[in-house]
């Protein structure tokens, strides 16, 4: 595969046409082709969760999703989670002062938002089972759990 192809993606409610290699992970199309850099590269191997976005409302590793497999499924990135950073998860994240370096937080926030959509009243065990898919080298883990619990209460 040495040649690029054209693909049209539905991102944060807008259609975006890009010319990239078909095996390009969605992550890099978002970050470098479309300059939506809030979604982060951490490992490229579904190990750290920094790249998590929503595809059809569900948390997905954008580093593991080749652009050729996205089709017309709607994608939401951290930039599109809310128009003004007032999603309950974002509010809870600020209230709990979760981010330190902040690099992993977009992925964590997207995962938490997807979790609460499917399970609005998660137990602490539910939260840890889901959020442990994410790595945070600053060790914000306990604040992440507190923030998800706060968001479940309304943010």
């Amino acid at each position, binding site marked *: 595969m040495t*040649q690029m192809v054209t693909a049209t993606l539905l991102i944060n409610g807008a259609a975006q046409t890009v010319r990239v290699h078909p095996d390009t992970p969605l992550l890099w199309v978002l970050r470098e082709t479309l300059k939506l850099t809030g*979604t982060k590269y951490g490992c490229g191997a579904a190990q750290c969760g920094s790249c998590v976005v929503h595809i059809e409302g569900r948390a997905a590793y954008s580093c593991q999703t080749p652009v050729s497999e996205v089709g017309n499924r709607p994608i939401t990135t951290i930039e599109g989670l809310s128009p003004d*950073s007032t999603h309950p998860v974002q509010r809870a994240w600020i209230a709990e002062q979760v981010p330190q370096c*902040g690099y992993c937080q977009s992925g964590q926030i997207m995962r938490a938002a997807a979790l609460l959509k499917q399970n609005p009243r998660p137990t602490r065990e539910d939260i840890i089972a889901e959020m442990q898919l994410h790595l945070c080298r600053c060790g914000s883990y306990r604040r992440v759990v507190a923030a998800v619990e706060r968001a479940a209460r309304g943010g």
Partner: protein
Amino acid sequence: MHKRADAEHHPSRRAVLGGGCFTLAFLLTPGRQLRVMSARAQPTTLSANTWVSIYADGTIEIMCPTSEMGQGIFTSLPLILAEEMDADWSRVRVVQAPVSPAFANPVHFKSQGVGGSRSLRGYWMPMRLAGAHARTVLLANAATRWQVPRAELTTEPSRVIHAASGRSISYGEIAAFASLPADLPAPTEADLKPQSRWRLIGRDVPRVEVPSKVNGAATFGIDVQRPDMLYASILRAPVATCPHPLYTQAVVIGPTRIDDRAALAIEGVTQVVALDHGVAVLGTDYWATVKGKQALKVEWQTGAKSERYDSLTALDEFSAIARDPSRKGVARGNTGDVAAAFETAARTLSGEFSSEHVYHAAMEPMNATASVRDGEVDLWSPTQGQTWARDTVVKTLGVAPDKVRVHTTFLGGGFGIKTEQLTTAEAVLLSRAAGKPVKVIWSREDDIRNGAYRPAAAHRLEAALDAAGRITGWKHRLVADSVLLRARTAQLDQFKGFDVVVMSGAVTTYAIPNKHHEFIHQDRGIPLGYWSANGAGLTNFAIESFLDEIAGALGKDPVALRLELLGEPRGKRVVEAVAAMAQWDRKREGTALGIAYSDGGEWNCKCAQVAEVSVDRRSGVVKVHKIFAAVDPGIAVQPDHLAQQIETGILFGLGAALRERITIEDGRVQQANFGAYDLTRSRDVPEIEIKIVDTGHRGMSGAGQPGVPPVAPAVANAIAALTGARMRRTPMLPERVQAAMKR
């Protein structure tokens, strides 16, 4: 969203803001005195030396001299200036400072950079004085305007008050007409606010950049975009080398034969560039360069010393050397007559400990973006060392320092690795080669395999005890490769070969009359670097584990033994505090406690921790239920940041204690990604209880690292208390715990 303006790139602040701008500029001279450069706004010429700018609309811009990497420095340093200036914090805008001697940290190599937990210690007084000076200038202008004595004026946040006449004026209003009094004396420490009048210091305020970190707006190095920018992916030699451009003893293994035909056939790849230490694939599309890198066929030079390095074999060799009294190293900080203490001892004890390499695993991998054009260089970098970045550009390209502009972005974690400057050199070389801006992104695999690891180290400790059970003699021999040899040879020479980075924390402050601390250097050609807490993470594991063994041999309580050995009150207080928090004397069912103490050395931050653990005796898996930490930092500028930093240190140290390791065989790093490098995750996190202990100390300390060292020995001591098994090597992998329990 937090504005990430760079002061150098305001074409005209007046034009941007439309109002009068009054700029106070201070240059810090080596004597820490403030010299006023100019008052009236000439922003294009003054911005490089400016700490604080006051705008007519009331906005106050304060420079943050160094890098925000999660430690909260973007808030806590400007807040110190705002405190003395009596600024309304809600009107403060923080600006990342450019590289300038004015912003150098006096205790950090006299350069701009963040490391060694030195930011608060270095900038505390300069920023207080700058704030006091700004306030004095505002008072002087108000006094002149109102024709009243300056002594009759007071301030409230961002307002000058004349109580006698009932008048007040805002800082912004003053800025609109202010000039700088010619006779204004430089402020001294006597002019500073007493602690009783602090409004900001010691009270938690929300971090200024946090809102930008929940919506994707915060710009990290890897996020930088420049018009017409190319990307670069770089293939490097398979063996671990040390090609870093500022290193005094770099080891460079380069390509001998490059077949780039397949790479160049990939759409989006524009160029392949041979570097001294690698082969770079450039392109208009990042993924194209990744594919191009995979398609390269490269043969490499051989002969690096590290080709013969096997990390586990080396650790066994190091242990044998530590045990062999004929092998001599370099001693430092010795006291008394150690030989006599051991000759006259009623009994002696010894203990051996070792630690494998660990890796930084900052979530943002190494990267840098450069634009080299017409002899001018712009570098955008998530760097822990702005001055070193500039120096690297100067050395790499042979340009003058004033042709280099370093733009510091937010850092997606640092922990020491982002002091390294290889990406800086790569980005500027490639931008010059391409004639366009270039962003270099290391893959996670690049990042793991081209790291600068914490040294693998082996220790032998010996203690001489007298008939009364007192420790009269202490010997600590540590065998490891050197961090300073390649990075800072002059510093190694300064200490006559005693690597103060590796030996951090080895010179124990416990009240033992006869002490010997020795570093035995084994140069194995492996790239090593600063890693959170440096050697203190190694030496504290050995010292505090051995101390528990001594306590056991003497039948003493581990807390009591430490209190007996602690000569100074701060250390005693934190040990007492953590013992009380953990209810040290309460027996547990199925779990046990272990304690460790770190005096914090240069950081001047005392930290004692107690770990509560259980062990699955079949699998050897250790579960850490809770960590109690008592910490005395002196003044806690932002108590919540401090607790966060200690917690970061605890979890960082816990990973190295239990699961993280880099293994190297034939000079090749065996781990490629997080699947093989096992970081702490949410499920592994214990309860953590942190107490800031006020011992009356009013000095300034650093909080980035003090949480790290006590974790491993506290956990090891708890395992020993529970099972009788003494853990002698980190990480304390389940199979090692199992083996120790069978012994």
